[in-house]
Structures are given as structure tokens and as C-alpha cells.
């Protein structure tokens, strides 16, 4: 029996551990990366400064330590599957950070990250579909094998400007955590807290102007962990609704290039940089459609203005996710029936 008091104490412990580790270890890690020369050019700033990358290892350490402590406190096997999925996603991203892999690598390799969820049975057999749940024991397995790569790559593909990926995950985690609490269980809610507070900590260094970049290792682990929390917490559709701007970005990109390729492999860039370092949408018809290109369709904007607009879109989709939660809760409690 889990008492609310225990939940609050456990929530405070895991949130604080994840936040404090990432918040306090990132500055020395930035110095270490600079010393090792592990930096990349930030093309959108005057003077094109070198920014250390990746922040993935530090996010992984903070989150995994918090999850291990949570496991010692509540001993739920779902935590093991979450940790394994997160670690596998991290290493897939880290390989891509070290050596540029072909476009198919991340989506295909991320299927491996979904295996711990299936093997350890962290998923349910019901898919929450707002108005009710659908019993899909067999169909659920291929769904999990596709959700992890899709969400992982969706967060990865939106990480185009300073602070977007970490800020976007913070905003979209709010409806997801509420949904998990209402339709999932408190253990999964506790599992999601290290991700939320870890993101808040790293956002402090990743926000405009970035002191560190997340890298593929950081974004893939954030996306995969988000997906595991939504699967284990019976909140898949709510999670997708909150991510709609990022989903739209991936969909626009894939449907315009018609194949899975790395953004850096695309010959015609979707945006160009003006002399004053503002960005403008490409006039080329061959350029891929992306969310940023659509934001810039009505004229050039600075990087900070674009970041703010992406986060506003994330807030809007999170509001829609909250409306969906209200509808689902009303149907679940019998307040509305059709």
C-alpha cells in the first residue's frame, strides 16, 4: 500500500536528485568538453562561437541515479525497463555524436531501445483513446516498437535552436505527468519526475544563448524516456497530442524529402541566415518544409524569437492535451456519455 505522504516524499527525493546532479555537474562538464575540444560551431550567432557538445552523458547520469534510488524505494520493474531503454537510446545517440551515421541508423537502432519495455512487460494491453480504452494485446507490441523510434527522433529533429528540445520537453511533460497520475499510476508518475526536473536543470545551460548543446545522445534519451513514461502510464495519445508541433515538424520534413535522411545531409537548407543573423525561410522550391520554415514564412526572425514561437506552439499543444485529459477523465468517471 502506497500512502500519499510516501509518494510526496519519494517525489521530492527523486526530483531533487535529478535536478541537483545535472544542475551542479554540468558546469565542470562544460569545462571538460571545452578542454577536450569537443565543441561544435553555433552558426546562428555573430562570430560563430564554439559550443561544447554533448550534454547527453550528464543528463543520463542525473536521471539514471535518480531512477535507481527510486527503484530502491518502490521496487517496480517498470523502472528497470525505463532505465534500460534510456541507456540504449543514449548510446545510439552517442554513436551518432561521435561519428555521423546514415539517416536510417537512429530510427532503426531505436527499435532495440523498445525491447526492454516488451521483455519486462512494462506496457499494458489497453490503449487509451480519449473516449475509452481499446484492448489490443497483440497490436500493442508493434505499436511500442514504433513509438520509441518515432518519439526519440521527433525530439531529436526539433532540436534545431538553443533551448528548444529541453524547453519543449519541460512544457509537454506537464500534461503527460498529469495524465499519468490520472490514468496510469503513481509509480510511473514518480518515474517521470527525474526527466521533468532533469530537463529544467539542463535548460538553464541549454537555453538561449546555449552554454552546452544536448547532442543526439541528449535528445534521443529525452525522447525515448518521454515515450516510455507515456506507454507505462497509459497516456500514449495524450503524449502525442502534447508533442503535436514536433510531430508536425517531422511529418513536414519526411513528406517533403520523401526518405529518412539526416538534416545535415539535405542539400537545400530550409532556412537561410541574413547579414544581421536573423533567419529567413528559403525561397527554393526544393528546400524541405519544416516547422521553422513555416514560422519564418511571413518574414525573418531572430533565433530567440523563433525559439519563443516554438515554445508557444508547445504550450498551445499542451493546452489541447489538457482539454483531451478533461474529456477522457469525464468519460472515465461517467460525467459524459455518448
Amino acid at each position: 500500500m502506497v500512502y500519499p505522504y510516501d509518494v510526496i516524499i519519494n517525489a521530492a527525493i527523486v526530483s531533487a536528485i535529478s535536478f541537483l546532479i545535472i544542475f551542479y555537474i554540468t558546469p565542470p562538464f562544460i569545462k571538460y568538453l571545452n578542454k577536450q575540444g569537443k565543441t561544435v560551431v553555433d552558426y546562428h550567432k555573430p562570430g560563430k562561437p564554439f559550443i561544447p557538445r554533448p550534454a547527453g552523458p550528464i543528463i543520463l547520469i542525473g536521471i539514471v541515479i535518480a531512477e535507481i534510488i527510486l527503484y530502491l524505494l518502490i521496487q517496480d520493474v517498470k523502472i528497470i525497463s525505463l532505465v534500460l531503454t534510456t541507456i540504449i537510446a543514449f548510446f545510439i545517440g552517442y554513436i551518432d555524436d561521435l561519428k555521423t551515421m546514415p539517416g536510417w541508423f537512429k530510427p532503426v537502432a531505436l527499435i532495440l531501445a523498445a525491447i526492454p519495455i516488451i521483455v519486462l512487460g512494462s506496457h499494458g494491453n489497453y490503449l487509451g483513446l480519449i473516449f475509452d480504452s481499446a484492448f489490443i494485446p497483440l497490436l500493442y507490441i508493434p505499436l511500442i516498437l514504433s513509438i520509441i523510434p518515432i518519439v526519440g527522433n521527433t525530439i531529436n529533429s526539433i532540436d534545431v535552436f538553443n533551448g528548444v528540445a529541453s524547453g519543449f520537453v519541460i512544457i509537454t511533460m506537464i500534461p503527460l505527468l498529469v495524465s499519468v497520475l490520472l490514468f496510469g499510476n503513481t509509480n510511473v508518475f514518480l518515474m517521470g519526475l527525474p526527466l521533468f526536473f532533469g530537463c529544467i536543470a539542463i535548460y538553464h545551460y541549454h537555453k538561449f544563448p546555449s552554454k552546452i548543446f544536448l547532442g543526439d545522445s541528449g535528445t534521443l534519451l529525452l525522447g525515448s524516456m518521454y515515450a516510455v513514461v507515456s506507454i507505462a502510464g497509459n497516456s500514449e495519445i495524450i503524449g502525442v497530442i502534447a508533442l503535436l508541433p514536433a510531430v508536425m515538424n517531422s511529418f513536414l520534413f519526411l513528406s517533403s524529402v520523401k526518405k529518412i535522411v539526416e538534416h545535415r545531409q539535405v542539400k537545400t537548407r530550409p532556412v537561410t541566415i541574413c547579414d544581421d543573423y536573423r533567419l529567413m525561410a528559403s525561397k527554393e522550391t526544393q528546400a524541405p518544409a519544416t516547422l521553422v520554415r513555416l514560422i519564418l514564412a511571413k518574414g525573418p526572425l531572430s533565433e530567440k524569437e523563433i525559439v519563443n514561437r516554438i515554445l508557444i506552439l508547445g504550450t498551445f499543444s499542451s493546452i489541447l492535451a489538457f482539454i483531451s485529459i478533461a474529456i477522457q477523465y469525464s468519460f472515465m468517471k461517467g460525467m459524459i456519455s455518448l
Partner: protein
Amino acid sequence: MRMFGLFALIFIMWSMIMIVSYFLIFIIGPLHITLFNNSTDGLISSMVKASLAIGLVVVLILLLGILKSKYLRKTLLKN
């Protein structure tokens, strides 16, 4: 007002997800096919339901593709 089109696009995507969810729960979910009056019927019903659900998702993606093309034509190419 600069972002109105994008807000509308996200709202339409959300509405489409809600409509598909409604169809899956209230139209496809209760479907039951009786052919042999034994346990095979359950299996056939499940397969038909799964196929319809996948088909519905494919239709959703196609509709999103059409929506995207129209929106791109309206915004990017016009500007």
C-alpha cells in the same frame, strides 16, 4: 496573428486525432462478425478491427499530407 495559421494547423491535427479516436471506440470497437458461431469469430473480428484501425490511421496520414500541401502552397509559395 503571424502564428494563426500554425495554431489552426495544430488544432485541425488535434481534431482529426479526436475524430479517429471516436471512430475507433464507438464504430470499430463494438463491431462483431459472426460467421462460424465458434471461437474463430472472435479472431476474425479482431483481425477486421485491427485492419480497419490501421486503415483509419493511414487515411489520417493521407489527410494530413493533403492539409500540409495546401498550407504550404498558401504560406510559403505565396510569400
